[in-house]
């Protein structure tokens, strides 16, 4: 009896997982199949595989459109932002997690508090600040804004990590007369590699997909990021859905590849554990 029960339960569980797996990926597959259909085929065949595969839409987006330019922009901009982001998160995380100083906890709680505010709320004033500093249409302004906005979360993750590092490690380095920068680069960076991978993945995804700040601070067309370029295509009339989906897939390629490589880190416990608080 118990055995039949287990088997029935297992069947139900597979069924549920199967249904949700389909619900999760169908929209992406839909976008993919649509992007390799011709517009005329899409009119009559919305659901199934393309009868005739065409790369016309990709040609339209990459060669005739500006996708290539936007793609290169994002690929230059994001690594430039990730470097200060990592540095800020690791050094602040180390200090909050493992050093003793006055007001440590109060400052840390303030950092957590500031994490929540929506981009739109900040954007009016950020625009004014960047205008005064001549940072409109300048990647430097966007990089600073991104790091400020995304670093608190990375700092939180690094802080929880460093607070589990044994105190002795720091004490003995201290007694050996190691200065703070040596300690940071020779000890704290290397031991935290798995966590740094996680904050880089989170930072990369946040920046690659970011819209409001880029929309505001990059107004020259040639500077646009890929997500911004696509977000703005949406409003244009007369663009076929087949072309829109090709643009969507083009912007998704890098995150998808990243997911393939780091699937383990992303879906395993560490990531969820780091974020769950």
């Amino acid at each position, binding site marked *: 009896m*118990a055995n039949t029960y287990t088997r029935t339960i297992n069947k139900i569980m597979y069924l549920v997982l199967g249904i*949700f797996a389909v619900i999760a990926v169908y929209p992406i597959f*839909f976008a993919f199949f649509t992007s390799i259909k011709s517009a005329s085929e899409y009119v009559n065949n919305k659901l199934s595989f393309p009868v005739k595969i065409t790369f016309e839409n990709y040609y339209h987006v990459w060669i005739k459109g500006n996708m290539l330019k936007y793609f290169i922009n994002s690929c230059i901009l994001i690594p430039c932002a990730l470097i200060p982001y990592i540095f800020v998160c690791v050094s602040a995380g180390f200090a909050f997690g493992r050093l003793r100083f006055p007001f440590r906890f109060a400052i840390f709680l303030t950092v*957590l508090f500031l994490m929540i505010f*929506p981009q739109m709320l900040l954007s009016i004033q950020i625009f004014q*600040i960047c205008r005064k500093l001549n940072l409109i249409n300048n990647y430097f302004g966007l990089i600073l804004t991104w790091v400020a906005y995304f670093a608190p979360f990375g700092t939180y993750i690094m802080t929880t990590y460093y607070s589990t590092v044994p105190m002795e490690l720091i004490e003995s380095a201290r007694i050996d007369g190691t200065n703070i920068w040596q300690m940071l680069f020779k000890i704290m960076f290397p031991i935290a590699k798995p966590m740094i991978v996680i904050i880089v993945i989170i930072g990369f995804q946040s920046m690659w997909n970011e819209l409001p700040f880029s929309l505001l601070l990059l107004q020259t067309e040639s500077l646009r990021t890929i997500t911004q370029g696509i977000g703005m295509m949406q409003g244009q009339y007369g663009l076929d859905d087949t072309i829109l989906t090709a643009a969507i897939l083009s912007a998704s390629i890098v*995150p998808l590849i990243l997911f393939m490589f780091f699937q383990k880190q992303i879906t395993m416990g560490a990531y969820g554990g780091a974020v769950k608080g």
Partner: protein
Amino acid sequence: MKLKRLKGETIDAYVLIVPLLVLLAVFILYPVLANIYVSFFKWKGIDKPVFIGLQNYKTMINDETFWVSIKNTLVLLIYIPLGALLPILLSAILREGLKGWPFFRAVIYLPNILGYVILGMIFSIVLRKIGPLNSLLTIVGLGSLALDWLSKPDLALHALGLIYGVWLRLGFGCIFFLAAMSSVDESLYDAAKIDGALWWRTFVSVTLPSIRFSIEFWIVLSFIEILARAFPFIYTFTRGGPGFATFTLEYGIYNSGFVAFKLGYASAWATVLFVLCGIIAFFQVKLMRRNING
């Protein structure tokens, strides 16, 4: 045991946190405070601000779109329980360790790696009147249900709630709750098994109580997602429309600030959003500090 602070530790620590603090002061703290200040002025961004007291707030509470955006936000919040329950159930199933479960976990997570901008766009295409969803409904004989989803105000708002508030929460929710469940004492499950407890019973009396802190935290995160992170999704999904059907406070700031250039007025909206976010941030910080030794 409290260790004695070492010489120079305080200075070193401040040196390490200064980059973060400067960035936060300039790009988050100052904007938040300046918003409140500016909300008492009439200001178009390039001219000199003129002090008008509470006029912006008076205009706002007489502005129909303000109340519409509050109502819409409340409707979206209704989807939070479902957006918590489904990922918890899925995680409880994944946790059973069925053959091939990591595959399902990865597949269910997949949409989360694409950003809100892209997902909003995909769904705006999927739900078009002549889109794939309606084709599917027609093929399976439910042609009468093939509606113009995004042109009917109620449908558009609930579609937003279901997609943004539930569907989009599944993948990350599974990772989040799996991590929470991995720290549940395995012997509780063994005990339940020996008692002959059925699956559902184990779920209700072992799994749920063991992860209640994570559930609390998830609810707070869900509030944040709806109040403070939805703009990019709505921007490509419906542009706040049809009419003002999917208009939210964030969208109001965008519209009055960056479309109509009434920056003082937009700041009044932003101040309301600030107060709401502040309340939620209070709970968030309270839950997060459990992880840090104070």
